[in-house]
């Protein structure tokens, strides 16, 4: 059974086709990369999976269950967590509170047990705190759990976002440019972290521009360009795929027939 499966997914914004007939599948506990030039539609695909956008046609399945069309918070409950390309932490809240947001969907104490702090409320709070701390420890930020999110360095903010996503106990985690803004050292430890997430049995799907990271951690790579899938394969296959090279560098033919070049 596949963890995630996209079947001919299409998304249009007005007249613009952002994603066209994209299909791919991810087996459980695999690390899969989604790459492509800027504006190729990678983040749109992520937003379709997490339900932030509705799709125009096609299907998205998560462990054989159709998830297209259900609201984001339900998708998180089912086991898909994500991080954002532009970091979206709760800036004025502490690290632990940020991570507790992830625990929210695994708790069920209602408004009345919250009002009167019933025994159930305390039990759940303690459990959630433990889980949140575990999550922070996992990414290596447990020492500064009381620090406000906005006071973390850029790289650590990315890690905090990953901790928040992990706190939802996901089966699939979607990372949108996790190494963006990180220095070499931080990227290296991120590679270790992503591999560690995999050993927990969690499937990882990531967008990344840092090719070193992609080639090192991904077992399978999907390449999109202009909203369409142009290649899929192992890192070795992708590196030598002429279509991919063309998408990234452009081909000779392109520059010869480019009307802009003709003018000069």
């Amino acid at each position, binding site marked *: 059974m596949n963890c995630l499966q996209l079947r001919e997914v299409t998304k249009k914004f007005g007249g613009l086709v952002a994603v066209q007939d994209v299909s791919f599948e991810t087996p459980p506990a695999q690390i899969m990369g989604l790459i492509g030039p800027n504006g190729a539609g990678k983040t749109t695909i992520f937003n379709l999976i*997490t339900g*932030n956008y509705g799709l125009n046609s096609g299907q998205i399945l998560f462990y054989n269950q159709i998830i297209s069309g259900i*609201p*984001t*918070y339900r998708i*998180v*409950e089912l086991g898909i*967590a*994500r991080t*954002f390309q532009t970091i*979206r*932490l*709760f*800036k*004025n*809240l*502490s690290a*632990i*509170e940020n991570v*507790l*947001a*992830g625990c*929210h*969907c695994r*708790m069920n*104490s209602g*408004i009345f047990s*919250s*009002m*009167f*702090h019933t025994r159930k*409320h305390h039990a*759940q*709070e*303690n459990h*959630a*705190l*433990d889980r949140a*701390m575990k999550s922070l420890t996992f990414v290596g930020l*447990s020492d500064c*759990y*009381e620090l*406000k999110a906005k006071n973390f360095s850029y790289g650590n903010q990315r890690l905090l976002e990953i901790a*928040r*996503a992990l706190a*939802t106990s996901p089966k699939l985690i979607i990372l949108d440019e996790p190494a963006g803004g990180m220095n070499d050292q931080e990227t290296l430890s991120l590679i270790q972290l992503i591999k560690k997430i995999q050993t927990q049995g969690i499937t990882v799907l990531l967008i990344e521009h840092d090719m070193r990271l992609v080639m090192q951690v991904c077992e399978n790579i999907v390449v999109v360009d202009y909203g369409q899938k142009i290649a899929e394969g192992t890192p070795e296959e992708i590196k030598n795929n002429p279509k991919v090279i063309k998408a990234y560098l452009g081909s000779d033919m392109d520059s010869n027939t480019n009307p802009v070049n003709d003018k000069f």
Partner: protein
Amino acid sequence: MKKFLLTKKTMIFILAIFFFCCPLLLNRYWVDVLNNVGLYALLGLSLNIILGDAGLFHMGHAAFYAIGAYTAAILNTQFNIPILFLIPMGGVLAALFGAIVARPIIHLRGDYLLVVTIGLVEIVRIALINDVFGLTGGANGIFGIDRMIIGGVKIRKPHHFFYFIYLFMIFTVFIFSRLKQSRFGRALNYIREDETAAQGSGINTAHYKLLAFVLGAGWAGMTGVIYATKMTIISPESFSFWESVIVFMIVILGGSGSIAGVILGAFLIIGLPEIFRGFAEARMLVFGGAMMLLMIFRPQGIIESVPQLYQIRNR
């Protein structure tokens, strides 16, 4: 640290005892001023859930206040239902009303929501003036609302109301401060900080925003019932847009999200103008100026919402 907390607690306790002796020292007029402060503080606390905790710009709170007050007035004068029963009932009806009107507008953000809620409070006021269903008494309002009788004591003098209002406030603060330190309170804070991220973390944002409205409306409704029995006569002009603005100011000025801040805000905005009544017209000028300065130099309000501390075990 522990010792400091203890002294702080005892200080608050002493202050509270002193405050509860106030009616013995003050004349009726000043006790009534404190009662008004209390009612506005209750309104502020109920708006604080919507505006301070969930960050929803809602400037139509007087509408919910009115629903509670009119529920009490109509049911009491027409069916003689005792006011004490009507406090929860007014709350429930206002909450229901809140749920119905908030549902279709809950997805609106910031200023758009603000405009819609301003429309809401005007619609309610005009409906009351136009005597809908022949129940609201039009512009004259409804008079002859009963007083409460608790344990054989008829709550009618200012110092009776003082104890009733402030005991209800203690109950409110107890409930609301616990809500803040819970899954519910955190969910509202996440929504205020970043709604998309909250949703992406698995929070049903529409549900929680609606709950915030329902809870805030319900509490404003209960406050409305207390107002109705305190005045024994209510009319539409008590629930104008200006009332909503005052409650909005109390929350923003006092410190949105902070319970202590909102109560202080009510004291400043309702109490201070009374203290400086001797200065006649100049007091409003000074008051307005002070408010502008405060917003420029302390936009988070006088008392900032304190971050919650978590006890981490096994470390």
